[in-house]
């Protein structure tokens, strides 16, 4: 448990001496602290025996109760792992980004973020959980506003903290109500209370879904993600998107564990929320020009996928279908880890691109894979993984999710079969759109030729930034190829999350891992054939001449880079198809006459929920409230009148 102390130690040191040393200390604190933190997590996962500790805490309605059980350990590993990776990446990223003394402080917030995430995950006490949760909500605020000279960053920070706080309000109510009923804020006591009040359990579930969902970024509470992620430094966004929003998922899982036997409609609710977030997330992503905004929306999508899995699992539990429950939860939980890996990778890649080309606007980029071989390849692997293409890790969890869908489909019960069909179709749509989106993202950024002078001047980034990306990319491949083992290994976690016996879970998972073995064999064939084909091609071309010529431009001899297909034009067909949701605003100045003068076209896809729902509501509220002005307009007579009237009113009221 010394993990937290150590992390905070490193953090404190980082803020203590803001300078090059501060950077070193901050990085060291993060790496060492997280490394030490990994030890108990791995130990627990290995022996599957929870470790806990109690401490004295005189805060009424709170107790210092920490515990690492299998689920906690499972969530701790991505947190700490990603923290290490991002820390290794972060230093060289920060050193060139901003004045050292200012950026050194960001280590403090980064480390506090990691520490608080860990604390949230190991807390077993309502108040302690909330405390850690709030700290976890606060520290990213300073990371988002890191570049506070930009108005956008400030607004992003505001949006972020406001959104999370509103979510936290629900959690406050939830925990206080539970604590009030249980008489103690200890998690163990909650379960007992809820078993006696089923309706209460449903209410609590709703509160949890809203509260944790806001943090996880489900539609429509997702609005802060596309604002906050682009604003923060890339390694911070990686940590936020890779780990922090997963803590929201952790909260939902933990509550489900406490709530005991679920009801069917919870599963439906989760599936509905997951489907909405998944589809809308990827749709909004399609329409973005900014690489990091695009990635942020994909976080929304992936959270949706995770919730779909958990939803299927809950449905399985509620209707007594062990296979469904197990595969569903396995898919959801595994996707947590996978998303952590490839989303972390992609954000780090985006950071590298920003360093190299000084912009993240897709329309300015292009052809980066030639100067940036490593980054490009890593980013490609990440993209393929997030799209769910074989043989990478993304495919594994999506395979499980599809499998659960197909299991449900073959079920005689009409309701379950329908659920399965919904999952399959939604997932199919999501992966299709995601493929389109990342074909665009990777293709426009790294392929073709540069669309601007900055892009042309791009160079590969420093080695400390490359290494983490390569490492994560390797993980993507590894998990993809070692799928059966990975799935089989997750038995303990799934058992803990579903509350089933490990043995039973193991049997169900054995089926899945068996299937995946088959899949891996096919991958092997794929790879072998590919290698052979490559070699064969090489031999064929060995003798003959392989000249380079300009690309075929339909007869036009002088194509310029500006004439390449742009990101917006690539996405245009799908965007128009789904304009009901995407609401792209276009500004077109068509060319006129035979010798047209300047003509222009620009499109911008803001978030419809932000522009059509939240912003108007806020403006309306401001208008309403500012009418209060009249009661405070400076006339002392009226003020005295208030006093008098209050008195008289009370006197009369009390006399009756």
């Amino acid at each position, binding site marked *: 448990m010394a993990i937290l102390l150590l992390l905070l130690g490193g953090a404190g040191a980082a803020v203590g001496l803001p300078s090059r040393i501060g950077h070193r200390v901050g990085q060291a604190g993060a790496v060492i602290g997280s490394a030490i933190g990994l030890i108990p997590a791995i130990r627990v996962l290995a022996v599957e025996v929870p470790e806990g500790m109690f401490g004295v805490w005189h805060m009424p309605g709170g107790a210092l109760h920490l515990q690492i059980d299998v689920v906690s350990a499972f969530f701790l590993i991505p947190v700490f792992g990603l923290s290490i990776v991002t820390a290794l990446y972060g230093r060289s990223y920060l050193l060139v980004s901003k004045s050292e003394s200012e950026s050194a402080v960001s280590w403090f917030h980064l480390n506090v973020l990691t520490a608080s995430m860990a604390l949230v995950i190991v807390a077993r006490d309502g108040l302690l959980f909330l405390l850690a949760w709030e700290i976890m909500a606060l520290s990213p605020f300073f990371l988002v506003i890191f570049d506070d000279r930009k108005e956008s960053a400030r607004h992003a920070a505001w949006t972020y903290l406001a959104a999370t706080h509103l979510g936290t309000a629900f959690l406050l109510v939830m925990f206080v109500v539970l604590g009030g009923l249980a008489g103690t804020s200890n998690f163990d006591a909650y379960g007992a209370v809820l078993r006696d009040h089923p309706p209460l359990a449903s209410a609590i579930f709703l509160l949890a879904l809203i509260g944790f969902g806001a943090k996880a970024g489900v539609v429509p509470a997702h609005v802060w993600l596309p604002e906050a992620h682009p604003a923060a430094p890339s390694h911070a966004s990686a940590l936020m998107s890779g780990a922090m929003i997963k803590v929201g998922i952790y909260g939902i899982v933990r509550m489900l564990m406490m709530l005991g036997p679920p009801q069917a409609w919870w599963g439906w609710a989760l599936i509905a929320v997951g489907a909405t977030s998944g589809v809308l997330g990827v749709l909004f992503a399609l329409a973005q020009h900014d690489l990091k905004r695009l990635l942020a929306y994909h976080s929304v999508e992936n959270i949706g996928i995770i919730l779909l899995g958990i939803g299927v699992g809950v449905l399985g539990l509620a209707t007594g279908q062990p296979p469904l429950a197990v595969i569903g939860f396995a898919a959801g939980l595994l996707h947590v880890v996978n998303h952590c890996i490839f989303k972390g990778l992609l954000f780090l890649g985006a950071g590298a691109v920003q360093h190299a080309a000084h912009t993240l606007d897709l329309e300015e980029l292009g*052809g980066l894979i030639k100067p940036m071989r490593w980054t490009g390849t890593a980013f*490609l692997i990440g993209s*393929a993984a997030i*799209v*769910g*293409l074989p043989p990478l890790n993304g495919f594994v969890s999506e*395979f499980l999710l599809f*499998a659960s869908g*197909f299991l449900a*489909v*073959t079920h005689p019960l009409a309701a379950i*079969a329908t659920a399965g*069909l919904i999952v*399959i179709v939604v*997932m*199919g*749509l999501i*992966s*299709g*759109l995601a*493929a*389109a989106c990342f*074909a665009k993202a990777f*293709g426009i950024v790294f*392929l*073709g*030729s540069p669309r601007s002078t900055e892009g042309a001047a791009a160079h590969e980034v420093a080695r400390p930034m490359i290494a983490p990306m390569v490492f994560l990319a390797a993980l993507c491949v590894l998990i993809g190829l070692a799928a059966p083992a990975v799935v089989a290994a997750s038995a303990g976690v799934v058992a803990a999350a579903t509350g089933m016996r490990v043995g039973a879970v193991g049997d169900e998972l054995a089926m899945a891992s068996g*299937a995946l*073995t*088959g*899949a891996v*064999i096919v991958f092997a*064939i*794929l*790879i072998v*054939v*590919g290698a052979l*084909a*490559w070699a*064969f*091609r090489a031999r*064929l*071309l060995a003798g*003959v001449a*392989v000249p*380079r*010529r*300009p*690309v*075929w*431009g339909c007869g036009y001899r002088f*194509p310029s880079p500006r*004439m*390449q*297909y742009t990101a917006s*034009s*690539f996405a245009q*067909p*799908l965007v128009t*198809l789904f304009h009901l949701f995407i609401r792209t605003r276009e500004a077109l100045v068509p060319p006129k006459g035979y010798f047209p003068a300047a003509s222009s076209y620009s499109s911008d896809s803001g978030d419809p929920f932000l522009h059509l729902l939240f912003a108007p509501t806020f403006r309306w509220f401001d208008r309403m409230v500012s009418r209060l002005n009249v009661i405070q307009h400076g006339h002392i007579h009226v003020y005295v009148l208030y006093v008098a009237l209050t008195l008289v009113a009370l006197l009369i009221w009390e006399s009756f």
Partner: protein
Amino acid sequence: MPALASLAATVCALVLAPLLFGIVNRTKAFVAGRRGPPLLQLYWDLAKYLRRGAVYGETTSWLFRLGPVIGLATAAAAITVTPFGGIGAPASFTGDLIVLAGLLALGRFATVLAALDTGSSFEGMGASREMHFAALAEPALLLALATLAHATDFVSLTSIYRAIDAAAWTGALPTFALTAMTLVVLLLVENTRIPVDDPTTHLELTMIHEVMVLDHSGPDLGYIHYAAALKLWIIGSLLVGLLVPVRSGDVWLDLAAMLAGMVGLALAIGMVESAMARYRLMHVPQFIVGAATLSAVAFIIRLV
């Protein structure tokens, strides 16, 4: 014996796939009243491509070279999970249909990236259209497979197709019929045939698939054509396997029936291509979504 049969089926696929195009073109020519190219034209073409050298665009990178290879590899790998009617696929396991979809997606992804690598606006356009249709085709395919799975209570292509015999047809006629229609549409979309795309057009602006491979040449082009043939064979055998429910005990008989079915399919495609004109691009999505709804309807019919 079944193992031997599935091996034989695989070999047939690898060898006979290009023949399908021959048959298609021959049919079209026949309907148009021409003699048309020889049946084995594609084989000669492939041989020629492999002998030729290659020319590469100045802007292209290694991805451009990798694209065709991956396309070929995915097609080949996909063959191994595709059952040939009653004859099981070499590799068959729970959820292999997911792997099939995944492999097709991977191949498409590689092709699209290779196209974007050229930086040519035409190929970018083609890539965009391809992704546009694929995003809709993928759920449609999965929907169709899900319906079949629901109808047969199996989650593996091989077992599903083994279960589709005459009895099953009589049991769930409307379901199978509707799903078959979906598969027909998907066949046309995935293999970019008329009325979705015209492989023989000569105006880049109207192309979808062909425009993406404009800059490929030599062995790469050969790979691409061969992969296309394999893809046609794969989806074709899914369709034919559904339409030809010959599940006699004798595998060789089944094999023969299937082969006949494939030839028939090729003829049918030829007829369609000579009978119909290409849709306007914006109609294609409706075409696909409509097909998907057919499967959904089939599913719902099956439910109640």
